């Protein structure tokens, strides 16, 4: 059965009122769902699009609120969030980044979904609009929720002004237009020569992006020296659950997780030693 109806919602609330109905799926930029619709494999009769829902914006008010329908090309221009900018610039090519959206990227299965690790490291929250109202969970909590994510509309991602220093590394088979083998995003708050707060997030090496708690614990409360970086990188690799796929073997993805975390930490600390 092909798609019989495409509804262009004019608000997140309007989309949410339709989202839970049988045979209905929500669509952002369409880079994930349009190929399925074209091939006749989408498995939904009705698609509710967010293209005209007024969710393409960036607002700054102490925090940065990014509408879920903001194209990745827009995210790639946010110079005050360099790690997020780096992740957005790494996705595919120019013409795709003009279509793909921030919100849609958070629904992409591994190895896609390059932005979630950075947003985890930045302690982002998400604004979700459902039939009964809205809620604003931490991204880290939302990503691990069970249940049907198609019943709510992801309207906005809110990024606090980053405390500390940040770093991002992504490794792929080719320099561009190539899915990630592994990626890592980190944020460190350094006080009196020791790490007061650490965030270490990894992507493409598990069903969804995740924070590596053991790596964060290894870093917190001690100087970020070479031994701490090496041990935290290995701890992050141990938290990965990669699979063999045409892009890379599980073994290689796990090794590159450690490399990505080490390089992201070194980048954040300003020591570019490899």
């Amino acid at each position, binding site marked *: 059965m092909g798609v019989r109806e495409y509804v262009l919602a004019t608000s997140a609330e309007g989309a949410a009122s339709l989202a839970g109905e049988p045979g209905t799926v929500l669509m952002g930029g369409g880079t994930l769902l349009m190929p399925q619709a*074209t091939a006749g494999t989408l498995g939904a009769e009705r698609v509710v699009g967010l293209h005209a829902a007024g969710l393409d914006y960036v607002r700054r008010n102490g925090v940065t609120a990014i509408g879920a329908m903001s194209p990745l090309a827009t995210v790639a221009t946010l110079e005050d969030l360099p790690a997020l900018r780096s992740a957005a610039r790494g996705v595919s090519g*120019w013409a795709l980044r003009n279509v793909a959206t921030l919100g849609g990227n958070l629904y992409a299965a591994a190895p896609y979904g390059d932005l979630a690790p950075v947003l985890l490291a930045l302690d982002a929250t998400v604004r979700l609009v459902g039939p009964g109202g809205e809620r604003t969970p931490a991204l880290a909590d939302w990503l691990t929720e069970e249940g049907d994510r198609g019943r709510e509309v992801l309207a906005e991602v809110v990024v606090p002004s980053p405390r500390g220093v940040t770093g991002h590394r992504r490794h792929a088979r080719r320099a561009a237009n190539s899915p990630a083998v592994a990626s890592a995003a980190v944020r460190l708050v350094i006080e009196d020569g020791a790490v007061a707060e650490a965030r270490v997030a990894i992507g493409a090496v598990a069903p969804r992006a995740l924070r590596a708690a053991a790596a964060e614990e290894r870093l917190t409360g001690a100087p970020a020296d070479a031994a701490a970086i090496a041990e935290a990188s290995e701890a992050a690799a141990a938290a990965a659950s990669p699979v063999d796929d045409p892009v890379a073997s599980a073994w290689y993805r796990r090794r590159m997780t450690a490399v990505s975390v080490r390089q992201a930490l070194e980048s954040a600390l300003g020591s570019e030693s490899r």
Partner: protein
Amino acid sequence: MTMRAVSFELNGEPVAALARPLDTLQSVLRQQLGMTGTKAGCRQGGCGSCTVRMDGEPVLACLVPVEHVEGHSVTTIEGLGSADALSPVQATFFERFAIQCGFCSPGMIMVATALLERNPDPSRAEITEALAGNVCRCTGIAPIVDAIEAAASRIREKEGAEA
């Protein structure tokens, strides 16, 4: 099934099409509007051969529901030049053998044209970055980068002479 009439500007002229839900801009351009210069390669956003410009921005026509271009402006390769009057990028692709089978060329040329409007003197690295989403199986890419560099200098010379 809900058919929808969609009106937009195509290469400077008003056009209309009757679309099924989620018909792609690519299929409407090729099958209803006769614009077969826009190629249908992978149909999943991976090859760049369907790149057109929407309000000046390069987009992949295979990923854009045609409903989204209602009221907007679309430019395809047919809007750039003609066989008698090639655009500067078309001309240098031709002169420098940046085309072999030609399937990727319309997408490459649309991206290159957009790049040179924003950055009249790009480095080879900037050209390569702009082309990252466009795949060519024939040329090895280098002649394409050469052609875009040559087009950039040709456009700059022409604008310098006019200034």
